[in-house]
């Protein structure tokens, strides 16, 4: 198989793009895809301070690598979720990536934020799925660090597969409010929010993995132990079967939604501006934000368990 660009020996084949590339041409192709996404969606400029949420996985580290290469002002944010050895290894990967390149990495460890704050404890005490608790924690800390430390933009490594799976989930349940807000650039709806962007939204998971591999990025390959059975993985598998039968399906699904569907939902799903949470002061659509509501539930459940334990103890 020959490289579509230089006619040398190809190392990677991309059916969705009807192309194949050698290593140097692939790296150029991937960087151009990211550059085009940033430019076409007016995501950010080289004068702005970018905070990149990094997990130690392929997507966030590949994104950080490309942005450093393109000369952007970046800082990484690693959130330690407290998921045992998996979190320790993820932290090590993110820290090693930053150290090897002399990049700034801000670390927040949930276990150090207070008792019962690690994801497994929160999920257990609130009886919520771990991924749901994790998502709420991430959104809160990402928003708070971006605001408190004066960043202009918050970036995540969500890729095409993530966006297609999320879109499928939102469509299957016709979650109109979620569909109205699913886009690669989310402008701030409150002065304490910063712009949120997803520069990899048109790069497939395979493409980001290939980029990370070719660049020698040492990322965490193992899956989060809590992800087993997550609905997002079921949607991804379904979409990958469709993609195998008809290459380009995922890209068409997301691109056409963003061109035609999302604006239609956005025009009918007006949302009032958020106020401020009475607990943490961050923007919220209720008296308490989702994070503070969850923390109240954690505290209440922990107190009730402690009281039950005291009653059961011998006098």
């Amino acid at each position, binding site marked *: 198989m020959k490289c579509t660009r230089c006619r040398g020996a190809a190392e990677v084949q991309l059916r969705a793009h009807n192309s194949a590339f050698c290593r140097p041409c692939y790296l150029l192709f991937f960087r151009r895809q990211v550059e085009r996404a940033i430019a076409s969606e007016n995501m950010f400029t080289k004068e702005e301070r970018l905070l990149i949420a990094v997990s130690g996985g*392929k997507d966030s580290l590949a994104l950080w690598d490309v942005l450093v290469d393109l000369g952007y002002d970046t800082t990484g944010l690693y959130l330690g979720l407290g998921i045992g050895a998996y979190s320790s290894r993820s932290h090590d990967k993110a820290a090693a990536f930053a150290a090897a390149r002399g990049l700034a990495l801000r670390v927040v460890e949930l276990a150090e934020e207070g008792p019962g704050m690690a994801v497994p404890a929160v999920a257990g005490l609130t009886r919520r799925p771990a991924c749901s608790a*994790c998502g709420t924690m991430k959104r809160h800390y990402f928003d708070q660090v971006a605001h408190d430390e004066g960043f202009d933009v918050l970036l995540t490594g969500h890729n095409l597969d*993530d966006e297609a799976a999320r879109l499928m989930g939102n469509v299957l349940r016709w979650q109109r409010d979620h569909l109205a807000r699913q886009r690669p650039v989310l402008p701030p709806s409150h002065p304490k929010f910063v712009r949120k962007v997803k520069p990899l939204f048109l790069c497939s998971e395979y493409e980001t993995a290939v980029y990370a*591999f070719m660049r020698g990025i040492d990322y965490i390959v193992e899956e989060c132990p809590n992800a087993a059975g997550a609905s997002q993985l079921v949607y991804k*598998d379904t979409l990958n079967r469709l993609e*195998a039968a008809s290459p380009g399906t995922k890209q068409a699904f997301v691109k056409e939604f963003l061109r035609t569907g999302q604006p239609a939902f956005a025009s009918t799903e007006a949302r009032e501006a958020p106020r401020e949470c009475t607990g943490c002061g961050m923007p919220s659509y209720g008296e308490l934000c989702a994070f503070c509501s969850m923390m109240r539930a954690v505290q209440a459940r922990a107190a009730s368990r402690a009281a039950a334990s005291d009653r059961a103890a011998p006098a």
Partner: protein
Amino acid sequence: MRVHLHPQRRTVDIDGRRRVGQLLAELGVLPGTAMVIRGDVLLTDAEMVEDAEEIEIRAVISGGSGA
């Protein structure tokens, strides 16, 4: 050939040379969901893997709450 599957941490031995695409189909791996690695090089579906070779099939799918 010896095939290491990651992140499953599973190794399987398969007899006979194969094209990568055929090998992936036999192992039930969908196209575009895993990288096939020989040494420090990626293989396309059209590449042949010889009986005596060792390769890694590394899944690329991640999931959960995202970000």
